[in-house]
């Protein structure tokens, strides 16, 4: 068959295939580039106590970092589950769970915690430097940081249902037991 005919067929088929594939992709989803990279060190103030938390001081511990905001509905949905996580693992001295208030007013965040409860520290991020440092583009987002300060895994979206189970059973539990995570799934 002549060259031009082949070229037309190839291009048309390729374009259509690309679009079919495209319909199943989400143009707003941003893949993370930080898994396996060192977590950004920060010095942030706790919302109620005023104490400054620094990430370097947590070296040697397994850290779960959760970004949330009072105006975010999905954060509200996962809030009880987060409290549950802390209840389950909090007694382990190698486990630290921290919340980071993202693009929010301090007062609104305090009110949220007062109303819905809080059993772990929450950090303020007024300029958004921590958010940017972790490549956060929306809430809620949750990070798992290993004992060497490397970001092991990132989860976008609320921790509910099977996602919650994943984080508790396949992320935190093995890591606290000293095992290496093969994947974040």
């Amino acid at each position, binding site marked *: 068959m002549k060259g031009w005919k082949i070229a037309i067929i190839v291009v048309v088929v390729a374009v259509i295939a690309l679009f079919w594939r495209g319909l199943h992709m989400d143009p*707003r989803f*941003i*893949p*993370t*580039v*930080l898994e396996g*990279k060192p977590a*950004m060190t920060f010095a942030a103030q706790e919302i109620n106590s005023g104490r400054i938390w620094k990430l370097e001081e947590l070296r040697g511990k397994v850290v779960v970092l959760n970004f949330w905001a009072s105006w975010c509905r999905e954060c509200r949905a996962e809030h009880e589950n987060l409290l549950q996580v802390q209840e389950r693992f909090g007694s382990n001295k190698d486990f630290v769970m921290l919340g980071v208030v993202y*693009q929010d007013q301090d007062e609104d965040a305090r009110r949220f915690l007062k109303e819905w409860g809080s059993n772990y520290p929450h950090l303020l991020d007024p*300029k*958004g*430097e921590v*958010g*940017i*440092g*972790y*490549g956060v*583009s*929306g809430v809620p987002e949750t990070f798992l940081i290993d004992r060497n300060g490397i970001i092991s895994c990132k989860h976008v979206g609320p921790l509910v249902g099977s996602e919650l189970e994943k984080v508790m059973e396949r992320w935190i539990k093995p890591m606290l037991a000293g095992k290496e995570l093969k994947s974040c799934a």
Partner: protein
Amino acid sequence: MRLIALLLLLLGLTVQAAQVEEDELEAKTRDLSRQLRCLVCQGENVWESHSDLAGQMRDHVRDHLRAGESPEQIKAYLESRYGDFVLMEPPRHGLNWLLWLGPFVLLSAGALLLRRQLSLWRKPAVKVEIAALSEEQKRKIDGELARLEDE
């Protein structure tokens, strides 16, 4: 809104009016912000977007520029955090070269192909013995042809 407007008016009456110059830092922030993409917007750059994240990124850019960092450093940092997606144009490495060089390669290849096709189509020169035209005749004919072609 109204209160602020009133306050501004009052302020204007009490404070000395000044010739204001654009803050150089602001101009630099603008230039760099235009090269960064607002991640939660649909295709807008960080300077134009009204979203909160864009505002925070603009502040980030401004603060780091003020601290003396170069635009490249700031871009590199943001790229390390968010990936290539945060830049308004794809970085020139790897597969992206396809994009940067593609148009020129296409143009050159197309032009070559076209030239080849044109030469294939060209009528072969006819070898015929004709009495050569005199210079006078040639000029006259060319002139007539030119005039015809002009219309």
